[in-house]
């Protein structure tokens, strides 16, 4: 995005809450919701004498994401203490990785905006609790259910050149972490949160401008709006001849603006040092290889494979590729049909199958293949097939679909004699319209076809009806 000779530049810090069964350093349940301060223990409350113990699933999740993004995986896991006082931080320090992140480098390609984003690093850390300030006049409430929930923090290079890329990055990462099954990817519940660093620079410049950080955005739409706003705000400042000051900003969802979080930037000294309670954990080659093996084909590879073989659009291909259940179902069905039915399959897949409550338990496959054949060959029209036959098929798994279509009386007829009978019936019923047609009102053809369909209750194929109608009307 370029305006007034200035270019948009952004980098993201994305926090992903992991879906491990327990917290990062103790055995508390890692779950969303729950009454305040019920998912806690002496360890997460930082009671005297308690100690953290590393959750191995957290390390494995981080490695999984690293492998998917092509990062270098560190062979040592070192946790550092980031010291600061805040009521949502029970220990008075956060366990994080300051000196040696678990994953270094890597990249991800954004297909819609056609942009590759480089990953600087991914590190592990623990989440803090939640403060509520609105319930009381004189005090704030502390909920420590979230304290100690394992997080991955992914830091990108400042590679974003448009708000759309920011949007798509979050979208793709959300799908990726869900695909890898390391997070539920639920942004409403805060499972993914972003800090966006925005700066501007003259087009062609190869240094970066002073950046402002918009904190804690939990929606891709808001992220896009916020960085767009911030870009314009900085341009305005420049237009007035002012300097951009490095600052931390908050995004106001209602007013859709950014505003400074702290008036004066107090330089925090976090006094990082390696946590003496957690010995260095050594990541072995075997461990990395095992995780690598457990990873199925990565979604972008599936996506391009699907796009090559099937008449899918980009959104459809991505939807299938980022969900391994859908990928499996789609490819299994596709293997059993001829290519002329691919379009029908895709339509049925997106119109009906993925809208089922539980698409992991789809209709019986032989039924489904029969259904595709009937719709594809137009023996049942699409309307009847989608609105009636599909549901009937699911509730009668033992019956053949053609039999069900017959019972519904929606099986279309190839019988041109039958078609002729119905056409003649219609033409006799509407002599005036026949006359007007012959006088040149050719668009009445649609009306006749409609009537034929109605009388035959859809059993006549529209093409056949048109063919017969044209013949009769011409011959007279």
């Amino acid at each position: 995005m370029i305006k007034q000779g200035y270019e948009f530049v952004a980098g993201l810090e994305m926090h992903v809450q992991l879906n491990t069964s327990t917290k990062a350093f103790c055995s508390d349940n890692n779950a969303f919701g729950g009454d305040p301060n019920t998912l806690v223990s002496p360890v997460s409350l930082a009671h005297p004498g308690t100690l953290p113990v590393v959750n191995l699933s957290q390390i494995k999740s981080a490695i999984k994401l690293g492998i998917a993004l092509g990062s270098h995986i560190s062979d040592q896991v070192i946790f550092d203490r980031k010291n600061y006082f805040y009521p949502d931080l029970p220990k008075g320090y956060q366990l994080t990785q300051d000196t040696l992140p678990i994953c270094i480098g890597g990249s991800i390609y954004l297909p819609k905006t056609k942009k590759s984003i480089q990953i600087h690093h991914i590190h592990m850390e623990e989440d803090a609790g939640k403060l509520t300030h609105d319930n009381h006049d004189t005090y704030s409430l502390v909920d420590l259910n979230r304290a100690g929930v394992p997080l991955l923090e992914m830091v990108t290079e400042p590679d974003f050149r448009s708000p759309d890329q920011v949007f798509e990055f979050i979208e793709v990462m959300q799908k990726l972490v869900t695909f890898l099954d390391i997070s539920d990817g639920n942004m409403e519940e805060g499972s993914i949160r972003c800090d966006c660093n925005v700066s501007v620079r003259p087009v062609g410049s190869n240094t970066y401008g002073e950046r402002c950080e918009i904190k804690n955005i939990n929606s891709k739409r808001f992220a896009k709006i916020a960085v767009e706003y911030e870009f314009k705000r900085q341009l305005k400042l420049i237009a007035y001849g002012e300097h951009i000051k490095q600052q931390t900003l908050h995004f106001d969802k209602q007013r859709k603006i950014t505003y400074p979080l702290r008036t004066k930037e107090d330089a925090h000294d976090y006094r990082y040092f390696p946590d003496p309670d957690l010995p260095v954990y050594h990541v072995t080659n075997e461990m990395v290889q095992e995780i690598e093996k457990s990873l199925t084909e990565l979604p972008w590879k599936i996506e391009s494979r699907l796009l090559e073989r099937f008449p899918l659009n980009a959104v459809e291909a991505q939807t299938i590729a980022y969900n391994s259940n859908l990928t499996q179902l789609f490819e299994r069905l596709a293997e059993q049909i001829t290519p002329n039915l691919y379009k029908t399959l895709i339509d049925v897949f997106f119109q009906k199958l993925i809208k089922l409550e539980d698409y992991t338990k789809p209709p019986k496959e032989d039924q489904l293949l029969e259904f595709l054949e009937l719709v594809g060959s137009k023996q049942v029209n699409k309307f009847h097939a989608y609105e009636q036959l599909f549901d009937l098929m699911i509730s009668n798994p033992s019956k053949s679909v053609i039999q069900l279509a017959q019972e519904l009386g929606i099986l279309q007829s190839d019988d041109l004699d039958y078609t002729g009978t119905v056409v003649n019936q219609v033409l006799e019923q509407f002599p005036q319209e026949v006359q007007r047609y012959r006088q040149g009102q050719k668009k009445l053809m649609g009306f006749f076809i409609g009537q034929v369909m109605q009388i035959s209750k859809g059993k006549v194929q529209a093409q056949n009806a048109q063919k017969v109608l044209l013949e009769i009307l011409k011959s007279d």
Partner: protein
Amino acid sequence: MNVVQPKYTSLTDLQADLKNQQITCLELAQYYLSRIKSTNHLNIYIQVYEQEVLLEAARQDKIIQAGNFHELGKLYGMFFNHKDVICLKDHPISAGSKILESFESLYSATVIRKILDQDAMLIGRVNCDEFAMGSSNQNSTYGPTRNPHHEDYIPGGSSGASAVSVAVDTCLASLGSDTGGSVRQPASFCGVYGMKPSYGALSRYGLIAYGSSFDQIGFLSHSIEVIEELLKVSKGKDPLDATSIEIDKQESLPNKKYTYGYFSQLDDSHFLDGSIHEAFNQFKNSLVQQGHQVKPVEFSLLDYLVPTYYILTTAEASSNLSRYDGVRYGHRASPADEVLSMYKNSRTEGFGTEVKRRLMMGTYVLSAGYYEAYYNKAQKVRRLLVQALSNLFNQVDYIINPVTPNKPWKIGENLDDPIKVYLSDVLTVYVNLVGLPSLALPWSKDELNLPIGMQITGPRKKDLNLLASCKEMGTLE
């Protein structure tokens, strides 16, 4: 009389008497409780679990009378206490600090749990320096504990009351903690045995942290035998402490002759107080007479021990004690208008002078701009020390020295000279910097009747060998 002939010094003897019905647990409990009452003026116990211990004693007596010994754990009949930094479920714990006033632990420390599982009986909680920071047991919100051999003098610290509680026979053993000598130095000043196991040999889960990479629970008792029993029962890897380890099994070493090394600087008559110098010479002679070899060894890092120790422990402490903020538990200052004042006021009111001093030092050495010069450099020295000690153990079996270079000082003395007190830790802190097992044994007494202890330090994880070889040493009295 403060110091009496101990009723029992050996668990084997004690359990034999219980079996032979020479004594009952209840009688023993009453004896110890009466000792606690008659030594009340020394300010040892913060809390006595009188009712609990009487009930448990009666329960054990019933089982003993029925002859059902298989129902009893290895430590039945043993009465012990715990330092005010080791947590016991549903009981107050305060680390000798106002900041933990009225705090009760929701869980028991792994070590306490393991010992109680073996039917030892916990008789009370004893005083100590606030957050185990101190060498004199004067830095406690409960006031100083006194040396039973001479009440004007300090008992040492930080596990001062632990040592006194054993010396005046209020229990068979005490659980202390040792970050830089806090078990061994008071053991030495009070004339009892005190052991700091290898770092990680005992779980730290439930031990209120001071310097996490130094802290270790230790034992004080009248005999090595009791310490050995406690160590065997409570050692081992704990899933709740990632730094815990398994120590090596004991090798059988009947009548083996050892090489004992000591830092050559100790030959310098200025290094040690006169009577301690003399006692150390007697100790060395006694070892030689027993057929062992004793030799001085070169150790160039002696001057760096105390600074390195204080930089690293205070750095860790400054972070470890951040949790005492008045938000979730413990002392909270009266309502403040904003959260920062709440922190400042609560911590200002809750912590004592020595703790504040160390928190300030620790915060300083970790600060941006000073980290490299202090914390990082100290870590490098620590690595050198590990290497140096490991080299020494290629030349000698054990390292010996007096536990302290100086004698106990008077209560109230040295309060305004912390550096002088820190420097007196020189002969104990290297053990914690390297994570070695080390035993303080009572050796002799000075002209004021104050005890002098000797320290024997072994290679890492060889705790059980160390205890086995020390059993043969005896004392000079």
